[in-house]
């Protein structure tokens, strides 16, 4: 058994930022299933929001707050949004202090650019690899604290241990050797990232399989607003790999098969810089109505050519290379085929403004358990996240989690943990997976799940189709009980890891569908063709999905916190 005062699972922006707040004062360990620098935060391209007013003096924290609330279609908790936007400038200056290489303005300040749904240019950036620059900066800081910070790389968290409302640690497996251990801790932070891998077309890493949220759910913690999965308008055709919104921020056009800048029909004022949900739906409408490009008429085009060689290569080099390497399109001379791609998980583990996890809709907490970053649902993004707000979320709430945990850990005694029982339970799960009847092919189940989620729970949703998706997921869950895991070895068994990950995807996908079916309205990223309008009377509320004793789920609702901004219709 390993013991640390604090255990942080996840080494993306949220996890590492929290660790920095704690290291030196407490015995802190960070666990990650990859290496810290390989966390998915590194993939973020476009920028991180903060009202620094470096480019437009008129910008303000208040404007940022309002844009975020409106962008989230009034489902965000406004007190949390306000905290995030007020802390933003500090969070950025702090990263600059740590050495983050930000691009600069002519006045030598941190450069900022425009992003969808933001009314001022407030995305601070490092070319088009902002997440990479931030993640590596935090990784550097963690190396600086090398002797004091324990990093368990390539360890896979299997189970969260919660007993009598108190969190006591996790069970994890060393991927390299297969050895399992209980990690005993006084406080635990989950910063395990998003769950977009359940979709066929997705910008998410293979690693984004919702391990953390599923472990929490299995330990009796509800999941909040799972139906809100954001689609990003510019996924590389058929790959889903993201072409940053910076492409549109810098002035890229979207064109349909007729060469028409179709956004003029949907968001005449903002055009390509409308928020993601609106742009994604506009693209999907064009495709559905037969104005898509290509032999199957199933994509639209992102045109950068008019920006010129210099701007493309200097400001958007990653986009240029992605298009070139992955689909062989030269963005200097040709428009790039794109389609909406599943991108961000607004839902997750419910937590308060200090990242303390809720165990119900009434506001009771799980003692010693915290969540931050994309796996959490503090609900700063509401029904639709604005671009560049999620790196910010991870930084701001990572730090807040760290601060709160510093105090909370001192106040939290060591709760006993039954090592044998926990290890046995984890071993049993793994043993069962390795010794099924082996009738079912893992790849087939995973592909069927992903296709179902993309086709039936995608940009547009409709009751009937989602009912079918629901049935399909249940069928796949049943088939999974007989799944074949051919690799029986202990060391570096990636086949086993994939099976564990698929079990998570099958479990939380059911909740996405359940939340979406129950939410009979359209709000933000959740667009139902059978209920096309927003219904504040019935659904200005957060969905909470609880696991019940029979293995099914139960949905309850929790009111949204409205402070300053009364819900109104969104127009762009």
């Amino acid at each position, binding site marked *: 058994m390993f013991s640390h005062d604090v255990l942080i699972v996840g080494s993306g922006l949220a996890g590492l930022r929290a660790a920095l707040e704690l290291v030196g004062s407490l015995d802190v360990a960070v666990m990650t299933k990859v290496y810290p620098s390989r966390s998915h935060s590194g993939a973020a391209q476009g920028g991180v929001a903060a009202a620094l007013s470096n480019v437009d003096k008129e910008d303000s924290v208040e404007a940022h707050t309002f844009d975020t609330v409106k962008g989230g279609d009034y489902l965000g908790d406004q007190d949390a949004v306000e905290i995030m936007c007020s802390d933003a400038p500090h969070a950025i*200056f702090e990263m600059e202090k740590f050495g983050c*290489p930000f*691009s600069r*303005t002519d006045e*030598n*300040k941190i450069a900022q650019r425009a992003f969808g749904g933001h009314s001022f240019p407030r995305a601070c950036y490092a070319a088009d690899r902002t997440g990479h620059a931030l993640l590596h900066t935090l990784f550097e800081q963690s190396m*600086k604290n090398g002797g004091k910070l324990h990093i368990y790389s390539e360890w896979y968290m299997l189970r969260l241990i919660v007993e009598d409302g108190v969190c006591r640690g996790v069970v994890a497996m060393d991927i390299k050797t297969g050895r399992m251990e209980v990690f005993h801790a006084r406080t635990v932070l989950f910063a395990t990232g998003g769950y977009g891998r359940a979709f066929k077309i997705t910008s998410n890493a293979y690693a984004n399989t919702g391990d953390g949220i599923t472990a929490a759910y299995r330990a009796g913690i509800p999941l909040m607003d799972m139906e809100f999965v954001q689609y990003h308008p510019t996924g590389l055709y058929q790959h889903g790999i993201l072409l940053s919104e910076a492409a549109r921020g810098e002035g890229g056009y979207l064109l349909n098969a007729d060469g028409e800048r179709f956004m003029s029909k949907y968001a005449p004022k903002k055009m390509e810089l409308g928020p993601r949900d609106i742009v994604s739906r506009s693209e999907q409408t064009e495709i559905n109505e037969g104005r898509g490009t290509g032999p199957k008429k199933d994509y639209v085009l992102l045109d950068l050519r008019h920006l010129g060689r210099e701007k493309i290569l200097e400001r958007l080099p990653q986009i240029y*290379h992605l298009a070139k390497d992955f689909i062989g399109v030269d963005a200097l001379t040709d428009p790039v085929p794109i389609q909406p791609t599943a991108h961000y998980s607004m839902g997750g583990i419910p937590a308060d403004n200090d990242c303390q996890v809720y165990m119900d809709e009434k506001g009771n907490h799980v003692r010693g358990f915290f969540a931050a970053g994309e796996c959490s649902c503090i609900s700063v993004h509401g029904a639709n996240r604005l671009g560049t707000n999620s790196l910010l979320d991870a930084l701001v709430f990572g730090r807040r989690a760290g601060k709160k945990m510093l105090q909370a850990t001192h106040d939290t005694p060591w709760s006993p943990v039954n090592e044998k029982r926990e290890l046995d339970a984890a071993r049993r799960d793994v043993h069962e997976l390795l010794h099924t009847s082996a009738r079912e092919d893992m*790849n087939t189940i995973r592909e069927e799940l992903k296709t179902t989620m993309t086709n039936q729970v995608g940009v547009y949703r409709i009751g009937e189709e989602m009912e079918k998706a629901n049935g399909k997921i249940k069928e796949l869950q049943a088939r999974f009980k007989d799944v074949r895991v051919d690799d029986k070895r202990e060391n*570096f068994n990636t086949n086993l890891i994939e099976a564990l990950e698929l079990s998570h995807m099958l479990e939380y996908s059911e909740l996405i569908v359940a939340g979406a079916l129950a939410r009979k309205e359209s709000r933000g990223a959740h667009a139902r063709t059978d209920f096309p309008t927003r219904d504040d009377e019935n659904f200005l509320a957060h969905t909470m999905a609880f696991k019940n004793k029979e293995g099914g789920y139960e949905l309850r609702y929790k009111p949204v916190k409205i402070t300053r901004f009364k819900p109104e219709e969104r127009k762009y």
Partner: protein
Amino acid sequence: MSTVTFRIFRFDPERDATGRYQDYQLALEPGITLLNCLNKIKWEQDATLTFRMSCGSAICGSCAMRVNGHSLLACKTQASPLVKDGVIQIDPLGNANIIRDLAVDLEPFWASIRKVKPWLMPDSADNPEKERLQTPEQYLKIDNSTTCIMCAACWSDCNALEVNKKFVGPAALAKAQRFIHDTRDAKRVERLEEISEANGVWNCTHCGECSTRCPTEAKPLGRIEEIREAAMAAGVHDNNGARHVLGFRETVGKRGLLDENYVPVRSVGFFNIPALLDLLPVGIRMFIRRKNPPVIPHSIEKVEEVRKIFSRFEELRKE
């Protein structure tokens, strides 16, 4: 669709005495990337095939491996151009111990990164409420090195590492450049001194493999040259590498010829008796193989020309 043989290295140190190659046949869909091929093989043919991946979009650095003898990122590489006589051969990264199949132990790689103290060391007085200022030009000096994704492709193919496991390696040097040239860092000279020590920046043999293999703009050899220039300019000369350069400059610049006996001696230092003794066996071996430089250096025909080029170069450097 043409069917291709993937010849993949398999080795599990816990079970196998030696590695072996296993062949898989796969029909290549047009436009398919190498990583997608490997996944197809793993998912459809052999679940025990082991390799790392995460982002699938060339940013996390997990999927570096050796293909037809050289390292690359599987996720960003199209498969079909890699086919040679119907075969794509895949091995784990070089200069590393194998954990299983294509997954190697990266601990020595991370340790090398930590060696260069890869974190900003600003002036302690410098505790800003706002951001520090940096010009776009100053930012551009660290732009290349900050693109490194820590994939270890350069580490795999580095020739200097192959003969000297203590060499800090190309990625660490690229990382070091990032701080040496960051105007916000206050420890430039200390960094230059440390990195100029044995197994540091002067141990690179200039083969250029690291830059050829690097999938980003980090291109370590270029960064190594920038560090060396910075070290020479900052007067960090008290080390073999710098003395080598100075010796070079003295013999070529002053005498217009390359005195191959002078340079190595100058490099280790005239009074560094132990190091000079270390050089002796090399000298003897060279003598035996008749590869020793002539004791009386060649004189060259156009000495004046060479001197002119050299002094012009020195002038330019001063400007």
